[in-house]
C-alpha cells in the first residue's frame, strides 16, 4: 500500500481503507470513491460497454458517465458512480464493464418511505437554494431544503470563492445549520429529488446509512423515499458541465474542467500533474487557475473563442499560462490514458502535441432542468447559454440561480445566483400565502470578472469521427450519430434509439445536449428547432428496494383475520388467501392429507355436525323508508315482498346482465335489511350501493352502513346441528315449525346475544349464528367445547355447496355468466319493470340457446377427478387444432356423499345436453364424462329441515 501520491500536500484527515479491483488503498474521510481513486493515481476505473475501452473519472457528481463501479462489500450493489459513492472503511468495489451484478442473497437492509408537507420545497443547497430557503424559512414558512450531497454548498464546494470574507462552503455550512435549527425547517442531506409529479408531488430519495458501511445500524432505514407535497417548489439545481466531441475524448485523464476544480478544492486531490485546458467559455479559466494554485502545471489553454474574458486572460498571463485563442483540441492521445494532447487552430492549420496527463474540457454549462421538465414545464433554447432553460409551467414551481440560466453567459456568477435564489424564495412564500418582509441580508460576494460570451461548440471537425464520443457510457460516437442521420433519421429521439445515446446510467446528463448539437450539426438545422429528448424520472437511479419500502413480506398487503383466527392457527388449520382474508382451508388431523381431511369434514357436515367460521362474508345494514325499493332495483329478484323475520337469497348483476354478486337478504324491519355479500365483494357491493344511491337515485331515502366486522359468524351445519344449537341456546325454540327455514331469531347462544339465521349453503339443516365480533372467539369455543362439532374450512364448504349445485361467484362465474346461464331463471323477476341488468337479457347474445350453462359432470370412471379448468369437447378423438371448446370445468371434487367424483362445468347449450357423453382432454387422455343436472345431491331438498 502506498501513500496517496495525488493527494495535495499537507492534507490530513481520518484514513479510510478500501479495496478496488482487488487492490487495497487508503483514502480520507470525506472522499468519494472517485476522489480516493484519483488520490491513489488510479486513472482507468471501468471499461466501456461496447468497445471495452478504458474509462476514468470524468465528473465529480451524479452526472458521471464513466466511472461505474460494482460494490462487492459490505453488500453487493450493481452499478454506482464512483463519484457518488462516499468512502467508508471496508468498502470493496470493482470497476464495471458495463453490466452490474445483483446479489445472490436477500438484502438485509431496511427501506422506508415517509410523507412530508411544506410551504416551500427548495431543491439544491447551493448558493441560490440556500438563499431561497433562508428567505422563506426566516419568514416563518415550512421549508424543506433537500440536497444530494453529504454537505451543503453545491457549486461553492468546488470553488475558492468567499462569502462575507470566508470560504463559501463555510458560509453554506453555517447558514444551513442555522436554518435547520428553525422549528419549521427540515434539511435533508444526501437526498436527491428524483421525480416531480402532478400537483407538486415531489419524490426524493434519502441515502441514510450507505456512507456508514458495515457500521450502519440495522434498525435504521438504509434509504428513505420522501413523498413531498409542496405548495411551492424552487428548483435551485444548478448546472452540469458538458464536454466536446473530439478524437479520444474518452481517454482516462480527460475530465470536465469544473470537476477537476472540485477535486482540487474540495477533495484536495490532484487529478493530474500537467494539464491542457480546452474550453468554450470563461468558466474553465477559474478551474485552470485553481489547479495551478494547487500545483498542477497548466501547459496550455486552448480556447475556441477569439476573445476570451479579458480579466481571465490577464490572470493567466500573470502566471505564465499560455492561452491559445481560436484553438481546439483535435485529439487526446495516449495508451490507455492521456499522455499528450494535440491542439491546433480551429478549422485548419498546423497542430502541435503537448505532453500532458490531464485534459480539462469545458463545453459550456447546461442548467439542470430535469425536474422542471418532469413537472410539465416547457423548455426554451437560450442562445447565450447554448442550452435549454425553463419556460412555462402550470405547476407552482420555478427555477432559480443557474438552473434558470441566470447570467445568460453560461458562467455562473455567485452574486446573481444568491440574489435570484432570494427572490425566488420570497416569491414562493408569498404565493404560499405568507407576508414576506423584504430585506433578507445576503452575504457579500467577491467582485467577479464580467464574462465574455461563450461559443457553442459541439464537435471538433475531423475526417474520422470514430473516437469522437458523444455518449461515453453507451460508446456512442459522432460517427454513430452521422450513420443514424445518414439512414434517414431526423429526430433526436430516433437518433437516441438508433445509437442508444442518452439511455445509460447517467441518462445523458453530460451527453444529451451534445447529442442534440451533433445531430443538429449533421442535419444542418438549429438546436433550438431540433429540441432535446424528454426528461424522465428518476433524475438519478433509485433502488428497487427503496421504492418497495416496507410493503414487503407480511406487510405487503394487509392480512385480514376474523375474531376466531387464533383458534384456527392453534388447531393447525391451513389457510387460503381469499382476497386479503386468511380463511381456514381445512383442518388436517395428524397423518391426514388434504383429501382425507376434506372427506372427513364433509362427512361430518352431512352426517353429524360441523362448523365453519363464516365471519368474512360482507354484511351491510340497509335502512330507510325506500330500502325495499332500492333492493328491488339492485337484485334480480323481488326483495320488497320479503317478510320481516325472513331471509331471501338474491343475485346482483351488472347493467350488462352478468352476475356480480350473490348473498342473502334478511329483513329486520319494514325499513331495515341486512344484506350479506361474498367475502371478496364486500367493499365492492357497498361501493356499488353508494354509487347508485348517490349518483342515480338521490331521491331514495336509504342509508347503507358496513357491519362486516361488527359481527362474527359461525355456520353450524349438519343433521345434529339443531341439537347442538338447542343446548347452546336454551331460550330458542329450535323446532322446524317454530324456527323454519329462511327465517331468523334473536336469542342468546352460549350466553351471548346472538342473531341466528336458518340458512344453508350445503343443503343440510344449518344455522348461522351471528354475535358481536368481540365475542366471536367465545362463541366459537363454546360451539367447539363439547368436542362433538367438527371444524371445517373453505374447501369442504365448496364441496358441500357444489354437491347441491350452488355456484360460487368468481369460481363458477367469470363476468360473462348470467343468472339464466346458472340455471337460475327462477331468480330473475318477470314482474319487476326494471332492475339492474334486465335490459341486457333482451340482447341477441344473451338469448342465444348455445350459451354456456352450468351443469354437472360425472366422469364415467367415478375415481377420476377432473382438473378444474379442463375443457370439454364432443369427440372421442381430438382433431387437429383449433378444436372448438364446448366449455370448461369450474369446480371439481371428490364427494363423500356421492361416493365418487363430480364436477360443475359451464357447457355450451349444457342443459340440452344432460345425459350426453362429452370428453375432457386431460394431458394425453380424453376423459369421458356424462352431463347431468348441476344439482347432484338431495335434489328434492329433503335434508335442509334435518
Amino acid at each position, binding site marked *: 500500500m502506498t501513500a496517496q501520491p495525488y493527494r495535495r500536500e499537507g492534507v490530513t484527515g481520518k484514513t479510510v481503507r478500501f479495496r478496488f479491483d482487488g487492490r487495497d488503498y487508503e483514502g480520507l474521510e470525506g472522499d468519494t470513491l472517485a476522489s480516493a481513486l484519483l488520490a491513489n493515481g488510479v486513472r482507468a476505473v471501468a471499461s466501456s460497454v461496447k468497445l471495452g475501452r478504458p474509462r476514468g473519472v470524468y465528473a465529480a457528481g451524479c452526472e458521471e458517465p464513466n466511472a461505474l463501479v460494482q460494490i462487492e462489500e459490505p453488500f453487493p450493489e450493481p452499478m454506482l458512480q464512483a463519484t457518488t459513492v462516499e468512502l467508508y472503511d471496508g468498502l470493496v468495489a470493482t470497476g464495471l464493464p458495463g453490466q452490474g451484478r445483483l446479489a445472490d442473497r436477500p438484502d438485509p437492509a431496511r427501506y422506508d418511505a415517509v410523507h412530508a408537507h411544506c410551504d416551500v420545497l427548495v431543491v439544491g443547497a447551493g448558493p441560490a437554494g440556500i438563499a431561497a430557503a433562508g428567505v422563506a424559512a426566516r419568514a416563518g414558512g415550512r421549508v424543506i431544503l433537500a440536497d444530494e450531497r453529504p454537505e451543503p454548498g453545491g457549486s461553492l464546494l468546488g470553488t475558492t470563492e468567499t462569502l462575507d470574507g470566508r470560504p463559501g462552503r463555510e458560509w453554506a455550512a453555517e447558514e444551513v445549520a442555522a436554518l435547520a435549527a428553525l422549528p419549521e425547517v427540515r434539511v435533508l442531506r444526501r437526498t436527491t429529488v428524483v421525480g416531480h*409529479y*402532478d*400537483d*407538486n*408531488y415531489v419524490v426524493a430519495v434519502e441515502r441514510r446509512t450507505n456512507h456508514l458501511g458495515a457500521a450502519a445500524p440495522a434498525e435504521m432505514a438504509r434509504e428513505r423515499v420522501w*413523498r413531498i*407535497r409542496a405548495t411551492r417548489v424552487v428548483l435551485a439545481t444548478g448546472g452540469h458541465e458538458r464536454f466536446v466531441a473530439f478524437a479520444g475524448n474518452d481517454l482516462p485523464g480527460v475530465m470536465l474542467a469544473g470537476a477537476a476544480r472540485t477535486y482540487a478544492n474540495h477533495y484536495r486531490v490532484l487529478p493530474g500533474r500537467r494539464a491542457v485546458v480546452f474550453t468554450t467559455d470563461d468558466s474553465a479559466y477559474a478551474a485552470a487557475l485553481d489547479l495551478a494554485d494547487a500545483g498542477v502545471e497548466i501547459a496550455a489553454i486552448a480556447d475556441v473563442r477569439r476573445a476570451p474574458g479579458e480579466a481571465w486572460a490577464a490572470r493567466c498571463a500573470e502566471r505564465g499560462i499560455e492561452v491559445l485563442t481560436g484553438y481546439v483540441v483535435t485529439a487526446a492521445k495516449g495508451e490507455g490514458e492521456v499522455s499528450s494532447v494535440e491542439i491546433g487552430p480551429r478549422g485548419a492549420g498546423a497542430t502541435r502535441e503537448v505532453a500532458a496527463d490531464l485534459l480539462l474540457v469545458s463545453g459550456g454549462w447546461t442548467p439542470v432542468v430535469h425536474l422542471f421538465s418532469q413537472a*410539465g414545464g416547457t423548455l426554451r433554447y437560450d442562445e447565450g447559454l447554448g442550452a435549454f432553460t425553463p419556460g412555462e409551467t*402550470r405547476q407552482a414551481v420555478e427555477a432559480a440561480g443557474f438552473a434558470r440560466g441566470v447570467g445568460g453567459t453560461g458562467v455562473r456568477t455567485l452574486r446573481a445566483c444568491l440574489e435570484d435564489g432570494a427572490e425566488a424564495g420570497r416569491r414562493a412564500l408569498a404565493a404560499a400565502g405568507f407576508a414576506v418582509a423584504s430585506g433578507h441580508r445576503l452575504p457579500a460576494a467577491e467582485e467577479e470578472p464580467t464574462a465574455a460570451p461563450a461559443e457553442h461548440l459541439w464537435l471538433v471537425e475531423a475526417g474520422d469521427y470514430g473516437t469522437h464520443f458523444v455518449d461515453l457510457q453507451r460508446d456512442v460516437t459522432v460517427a454513430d450519430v452521422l450513420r443514424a442521420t445518414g439512414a434517414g433519421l431526423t429526430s433526436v429521439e430516433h437518433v437516441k434509439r438508433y445509437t442508444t445515446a442518452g439511455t445509460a446510467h447517467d441518462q445523458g446528463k453530460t451527453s444529451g445536449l451534445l447529442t442534440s448539437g451533433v445531430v443538429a450539426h449533421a442535419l444542418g438545422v438549429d438546436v433550438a428547432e431540433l429540441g432535446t429528448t424528454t426528461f424522465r424520472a428518476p433524475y438519478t437511479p433509485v433502488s428497487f428496494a427503496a421504492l418497495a419500502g416496507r410493503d414487503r413480506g407480511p406487510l405487503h398487503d394487509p392480512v385480514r383475520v376474523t375474531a376466531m383466527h387464533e383458534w384456527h392457527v392453534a388447531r393447525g388449520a391451513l389457510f387460503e388467501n381469499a382476497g386479503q382474508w386468511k380463511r381456514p382451508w381445512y383442518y388436517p388431523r395428524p397423518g391426514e392429507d388434504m383429501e382425507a381431511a376434506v372427506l372427513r369434514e364433509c362427512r361430518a357436515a352431512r352426517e353429524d355436525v360441523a362448523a365453519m367460521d363464516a365471519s368474512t362474508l360482507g354484511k351491510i345494514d340497509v335502512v330507510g323508508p325506500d330500502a325495499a325499493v332500492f333492493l328491488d332495483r339492485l337484485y334480480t329478484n323481488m326483495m320488497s315482498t320479503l317478510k320481516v323475520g325472513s331471509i331471501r337469497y338474491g343475485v346482483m348483476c351488472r*347493467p*350488462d346482465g352478468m352476475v356480480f354478486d350473490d348473498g342473502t337478504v334478511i329483513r329486520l324491519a319494514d325499513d331495515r335489511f341486512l344484506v350479506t355479500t361474498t367475502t371478496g365483494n364486500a367493499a365492492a357491493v357497498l*361501493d356499488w350501493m*353508494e*354509487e347508485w344511491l*348517490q*349518483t*342515480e337515485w*338521490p331521491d331514495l331515502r336509504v342509508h347503507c352502513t358496513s357491519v362486516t366486522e361488527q359481527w362474527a359468524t359461525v355456520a353450524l351445519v349438519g343433521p345434529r346441528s339443531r341439537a347442538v344449537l338447542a343446548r347452546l341456546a336454551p331460550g330458542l325454540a329450535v323446532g322446524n315449525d317454530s324456527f323454519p327455514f329462511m327465517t331468523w331469531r334473536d336469542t342468546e347462544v352460549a350466553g351471548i346475544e346472538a342473531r341466528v339465521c336458518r340458512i344453508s349453503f350445503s343443503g343440510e339443516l344449518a344455522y348461522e349464528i351471528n354475535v358481536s365480533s368481540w365475542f366471536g372467539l367465545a362463541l366459537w369455543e363454546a360451539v367447539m367445547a363439547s368436542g362433538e362439532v367438527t371444524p371445517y374450512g373453505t374447501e369442504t364448504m365448496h364441496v358441500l355447496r357444489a354437491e347441491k349445485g350452488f355456484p360460487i361467484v368468481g369460481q363458477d362465474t367469470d363476468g360473462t355468466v348470467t343468472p339464466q346461464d346458472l340455471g337460475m331463471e327462477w331468480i330473475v323477476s318477470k314482474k319487476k*319493470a*326494471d332492475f339492474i341488468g*334486465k*335490459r*341486457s337479457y*333482451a*340482447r*341477441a347474445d344473451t338469448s342465444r340457446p348455445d350459451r354456456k350453462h352450468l351443469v354437472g359432470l360425472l366422469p364415467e370412471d367415478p375415481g377420476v377427478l377432473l382438473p378444474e379448468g379442463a375443457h370439454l369437447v364432443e369427440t372421442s378423438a381430438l382433431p387437429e387444432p383449433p378444436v372448438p371448446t364446448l366449455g370448461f370445468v369450474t369446480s371439481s371434487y371428490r364427494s363423500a356423499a356421492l361416493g365418487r367424483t363430480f364436477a360443475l362445468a359451464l357447457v355450451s347449450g349444457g342443459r340440452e345436453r344432460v345425459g350426453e357423453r362429452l370428453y375432457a382432454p386431460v394431458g394425453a387422455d380424453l376423459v369421458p364424462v356424462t352431463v347431468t343436472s348441476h344439482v347432484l345431491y338431495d335434489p328434492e331438498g329433503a335434508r335442509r329441515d334435518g
Partner: protein
Amino acid sequence: MLLIPCPWCGPRDEAEFHYGGQAHVAYPEDPAALSDEEWARYLFFRDNPKGLFAERWSHTAGCRRWFNAVRDTATNEIHAVYRTGEPRPVIA
C-alpha cells in the same frame, strides 16, 4: 399522484379516490324502451376527450361521497369540482 379537492374533505391524494369515468351519464328512464344500439351506447360508450372532461370521483377512503370534477386530460389539471346533481360549471 393528483391532489384532488374533495368538495367536503378538501385536497386529498388521488389514492384515496375511486374513479368513476364520465359524469352526467344518466341511467335510462326506461331501458326496455331502448334499442339494442341505444342500450349498448349506455353500457359501453363514454366520451374520451383530450382536454376538458367532466368525470366522477368517489372519495372512497374518506367521506365516501361521489362528486364530479372537470379535469383536463391533457394536463391533469383539475379546473373545478362540484357535487353530484349540480350542473357542470363552465370553464373559461
